[in-house]
């Protein structure tokens, strides 16, 4: 199975005149990456004296900052500076916000935090460890505010408001109308609706963010190296925030980047932050994000609440759509948001011929991490609603879902096809693609498998999806968020400038540069194929550079690696640049060979006469002439040293007066179907077969195209089955490690059956379209449709974890039976920890009681306790260091005793705060003689936590709680035993401090 799947990638033929484009040649990138020679940002050396930054982040989802005490941190040896919001504000200005509203967007909290993980201070020191030590010494006093995490909840009147400039948390609202949707709905025999909650997730590259910045005070110019991925429209945002013209922000990227999938666009606020730190310290500053920071606070795809209705004819033909989308962009509307919502605007009818459309778009802010680019970018959210609705229509009308899809597909003769909302679909034959996929993917046999499985009582279902995959974004689509009048005022935005430079050096060897910033997509290899074909050379003769340096390279706002623009736009532009040089070389060669330029061909390393191939000169010889003897070249040839081409497709026009927008240049087509089986006992979803048919136009490198499809499929499978950025109701982030945010591994990802069809795009130089994002759009809903089919349920929410399916199938889980020493979240997503247990300690209750109230005893038995201060007889303060999993830190605990019933019982209530989080707890301890002169202690507690500690998950907290409480009683018992008559007590207090400091309880 695996063999067949990868076979196409291995067929490398040599020694013929077939073009290099279209062959799966080995990648030029790989030798270095396979032997440890990659050059990722953290692999590159830095200037001597470079400082290292760490970022102190908010443990609260929403709180006012009352004070920040940085004195102790600043005194720590090795610490150069501690920047709070104020210090950053002194050298920067707010990041621009993508809608017209009086709000600011800073890369660091000013006087209020709005999401867990929001930067609060930047510590700069001689090394990272020292910076982290210092961050722990910063004391921030917060006053918590109510938090809002649900997009619809954010709109409810009376909900906590994040920004005064976004009244009611509404950042933008627009209504659109295309055709006559009201009439279509009124006339239609059927109306079907679906409500969707699309969850938050992220493609989480394995390399995290990195920034190295320096500032030249003399010229007030910044130099930044960052694993940023584009779009370079963001360069303008960064320069503006740093208060310098664009020519004083030199932004470079490292040669290698460890994956991005859109996510590394989100490094830009940190570029501003670290550049500010460099300016303040006068030294280069480096920052490498860690995984907890990345999961908590880098960036995320948007979650969205959608209601979609369709007016439908009796035969399943969709006559009109009515979209109501509420987009959750998190705590700040960061550039380029609300782009996720508008990226698909031209494609709101998917692969279907639907002429009447109504759309209501609202963008809200909530107390969660700000959103940004993520593979699929708006597609998963849209197609989940549309394709779930298509299934619902089929079920309601008792039609075959595939028949409903086919009935609505755009006709093959209709291309180029203008959708109701303005996209110009370039080319395709959707009916043919569906037919081929059904045949090659053996749909009939899959249906028989389902019947057989069901006859045996197994849960088996089939799902279908048809998706149009847009690529090469129109830089003007985001202005659809503005009204036509606002757009007229702001001036038109459109196009998608791609750039490529082809250079010939004095020995005639060829160099190509593009501003495409790949993160593993093999751009260098593909470009070498494209340019080799133009010059009649071999790929190994072409050296390609894909790094970007905004001070020296050709670039524009559309530069970068996003919206699947490489194959369609960038590779095509490189071809145009090479052809322009080749045209001039042909004129030069023609004069040397004494033939017409039209008679000149480039083949096998020579420039030759087509008619008389013996009449030829070596390519390198002709190529070098511009350097060595420019004076003897024909007058009309011009130079052949270097040619830069800028290419933007004329089809990408700005939104028209009626808000129609051709949001993307190319539109691939995907048709997926799959069979899944759900285990009746575990409710685990197993993919039996996944078939994915792609028409991405001309294929430049089959191995890489399949690589993109497989990679996107694996990420989409994660989004469908496992991944969710989970938040508690109070905004605590619950999935801060890769053990909590579950990514699929080799044992979860099956090989999809990939099929291709090639309908070239008439709009791109090579006929290619984008292919990288399609499965992120199609696969989540295809799997959901299959699971819905298997379970016979109407509503499905991602991710399809067994617990969620269990609720669908069996109803909510009954609470676990009480008893035993347990400490576990009461329910999924709840940070409340409740537990109880008992312990035996030597010594009579009176002695134990005394120990519990004695600061010295407490200090010695509380695990990790540095000191205990007695404020009053019933009020203690303690400093405790605790480690849970990867997170260890210092906490200050404050505990009070109530309902004292010496020596029988006491209630403890308290809270703890530290750099890693906060918490509150309440516990009751009872002491009773055990009949042997000792004391039996019974305790129960109820605690809640927030901040970083919460993010590492209840999974660890559960065990850690038990371990720590166990340590406490062991120490207490030891102390009681060792102290002889002095007896052992149990420190109630310790227990409490422990529990409070770790698990702190509810507010």
């Amino acid at each position, binding site marked *: 199975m695996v063999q067949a799947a990868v076979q196409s990638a291995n067929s490398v033929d040599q020694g013929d005149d077939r073009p290099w484009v279209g062959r799966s040649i080995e990648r030029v990138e*790989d030798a270095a990456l*396979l032997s440890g*020679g990659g050059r990722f940002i953290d*692999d590159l050396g830095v200037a001597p004296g470079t400082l290292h930054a760490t970022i102190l982040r908010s443990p609260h989802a929403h709180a006012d900052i009352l004070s920040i005490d940085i004195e102790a941190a600043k005194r720590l040896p090795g610490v150069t500076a501690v920047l709070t919001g104020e210090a950053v504000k002194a050298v920067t200005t707010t990041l621009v916000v993508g809608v017209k509203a009086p709000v600011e967007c800073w890369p660091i909290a000013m006087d209020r935090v709005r999401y867990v993980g929001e930067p609060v201070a930047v510590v700069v020191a001689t090394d990272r460890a020292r910076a982290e030590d210092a961050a722990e010494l910063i004391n921030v006093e917060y006053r918590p505010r109510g938090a809002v995490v649900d997009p619809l909840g954010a709109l409810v009147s009376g909900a906590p408001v994040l920004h005064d400039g976004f009244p009611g948390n509404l950042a933008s609202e627009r209504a659109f109308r295309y055709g006559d949707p009201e009439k279509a709905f009124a006339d239609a025999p059927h109306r079907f609706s679906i409500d969707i909650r699309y969850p938050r997730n992220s493609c989480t590259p394995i390399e995290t963010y990195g920034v190295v910045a320096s500032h030249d005070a003399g010229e007030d110019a910044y130099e930044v190296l960052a694993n940023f991925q584009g779009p370079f429209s963001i360069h303008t945002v960064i320069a503006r925030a740093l208060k310098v013209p664009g020519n004083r922000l030199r932004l470079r990227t490292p040669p290698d980047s460890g994956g991005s*999938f859109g996510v590394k666009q989100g490094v830009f606020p940190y570029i501003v932050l670290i550049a500010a730190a460099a300016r303040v310290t006068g030294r280069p500053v480096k920052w490498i994000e860690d995984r907890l920071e990345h999961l908590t606070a880098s960036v995320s795809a948007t979650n969205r609440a959608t209601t979609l209705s369709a007016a439908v004819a009796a035969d399943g033909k969709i006559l009109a759509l009515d979209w109501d989308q509420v987009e959750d962009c998190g705590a700040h509307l960061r550039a380029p948001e609300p782009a996720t919502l508008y990226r698909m605007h031209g494609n709101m009818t998917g692969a279907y011929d639907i002429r009447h459309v109504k759309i209501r778009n609202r963008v809200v802010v909530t107390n969660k991490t700000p959103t940004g680019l993520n593979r699929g970018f708006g597609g998963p959210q849209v197609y989940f609603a549309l394709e779930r609705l298509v299934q619902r229509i089929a079920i309601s009308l008792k039609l075959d879902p595939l028949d409903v899809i086919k009935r609505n597909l755009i006709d093959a003769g209709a291309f180029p096809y203008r959708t109701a909302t303005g996209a110009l679909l370039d080319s395709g034959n959707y009916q043919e693609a569906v037919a081929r996929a059904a045949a090659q993917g053996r749909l009939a046999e899959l249906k028989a498998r389902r019947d057989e499985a069901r006859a045996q009582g197994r849960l088996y279902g089939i799902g279908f999806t048809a998706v149009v995959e847009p690529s090469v974004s129109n830089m003007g689509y985001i202005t659809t968020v503005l009204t036509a009048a606002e757009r007229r005022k702001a001036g038109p935005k459109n196009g998608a400038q791609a750039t490529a430079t082809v250079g010939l050096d004095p020995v005639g060897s060829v160099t190509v540069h593009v501003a495409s910033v790949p993160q593993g997509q093999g751009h260098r290899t593909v470009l070498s194929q494209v340019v080799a074909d133009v010059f009649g050379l071999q790929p190994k003769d072409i050296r390609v550079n894909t790094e970007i340096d905004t001070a020296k390279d050709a670039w524009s706002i559309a530069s970068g690696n996003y919206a699947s623009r490489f194959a369609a736009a960038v590779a095509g532009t490189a071809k145009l640049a090479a052809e322009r040089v080749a045209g001039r070389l042909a004129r030069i060669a023609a004069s040397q060979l004494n033939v017409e330029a039209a008679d000149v061909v480039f083949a096998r390393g020579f420039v030759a006469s087509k008619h008389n191939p013996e009449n030829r000169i070596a390519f390198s010889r002709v190529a070098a002439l511009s350097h060595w003897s420019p004076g003897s070249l024909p007058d009309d040839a011009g130079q052949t040293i270097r040619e830069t081409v800028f290419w933007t497709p004329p089809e990408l026009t700005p939104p028209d007066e009626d808000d129609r927008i051709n949001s993307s240049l190319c539109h691939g087509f995907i048709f997926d179907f799959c069979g899944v089986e759900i285990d009746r006992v575990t409710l685990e979803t197993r993919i039996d077969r996944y078939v994915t048919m792609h028409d991405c136009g001309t294929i430049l490198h089959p191995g890489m195209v399949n690589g993109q499809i497989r990679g996107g499929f694996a990420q989409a499978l994660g989004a469908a089955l496992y991944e969710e950025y989970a938040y508690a109701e109070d905004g605590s982030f619950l999935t801060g490690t890769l053990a909590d945010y579950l990514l699929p591994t080799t044992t979860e990802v099956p090989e999809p059956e990939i099929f291709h069809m090639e309908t070239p795009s008439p709009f791109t130089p090579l006929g290619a379209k984008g292919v990288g994002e399609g499965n992120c759009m199609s696969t989540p809903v295809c799997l959901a449709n299959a699971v819905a089919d298997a379970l016979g349920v109407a509503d499905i929410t991602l991710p399809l974890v067994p617990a969620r399916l269990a609720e669908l199938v069996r109803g909510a889980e009954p609470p676990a039976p009480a008893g035993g020493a347990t400490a576990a979240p009461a329910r999924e997503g709840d940070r409340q920890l409740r537990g109880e247990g008992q312990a035996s300690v030597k010594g009579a209750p009176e002695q134990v009681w005394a120990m519990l109230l004695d600061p010295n005893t407490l200090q010695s038995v509380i695990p990790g306790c540095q000191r205990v201060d007695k404020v009053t007889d019933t009020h203690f303060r303690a400093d405790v260091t605790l480690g849970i999993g990867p997170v260890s830190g210092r906490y200050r605990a404050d505990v009070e005793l109530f309902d004292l019933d010496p020596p029988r019982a006491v209630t403890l209530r308290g809270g703890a705060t530290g750099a890693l989080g906060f918490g509150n707890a309440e516990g009751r301890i009872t002491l009773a003689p055990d009949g042997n002169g000792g004391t039996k202690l019974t305790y129960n507690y109820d605690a809640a936590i927030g901040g970083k500690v919460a993010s590492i998950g209840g999974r660890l907290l559960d065990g850690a709680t038990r371990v720590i409480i166990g340590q406490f009683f062991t120490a207490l018992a030891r102390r009681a035993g060792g102290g002889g008559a002095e007896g052992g007590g149990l420190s109630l207090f310790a227990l409490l401090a422990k529990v409070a400091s770790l698990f702190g309880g509810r507010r």
Partner: protein
Amino acid sequence: MTRLKADARHSVRFTLNGRPAEGEAEPRMLLSDFLRHQLGATGTHVGCEHGVCGACTIVVDGMLTRSCLTLAAQADGCDLKTVEGLAPSADRLGVLQQAFRRNHALQCGFCTAGILMSLDHYLAKNSAPTEAETRDLLSGHICRCTGYTPIIQAALEAAAKLASSKKETSDA
């Protein structure tokens, strides 16, 4: 066991890919950071620093080890193998590396070093692994780019190649 002072730097010596290596480390320094930043062996990557992603996997005294969960001081006196030691020479790739390249088993290459180390270690002892065994072995590694199949394919292809070349050698 020697006691190390928390705030002092201690010398750490080990064999790295057959050659002696030496540097200084605070007791809290991770082996991954020591390799990368003290010794400049940046081929070993860190993706999570909490033991889940597998990117930092190396071989210490013949055992697969997460270098992000190991202190540099613990490696003192050990024999380490990292991705930099896989190729037979600077301009040639080993059998496993070649199989990765042929099968497009990497895209960004950030996860690759750890996966290569796990496979190199495994294939030395298991000459004819099945697909299921290989998937099981690699389930401790996360790759966000490839969807895994090409990695499995490369591993199986390398195993077959290694087994046949071993056979040739022993036949000879």
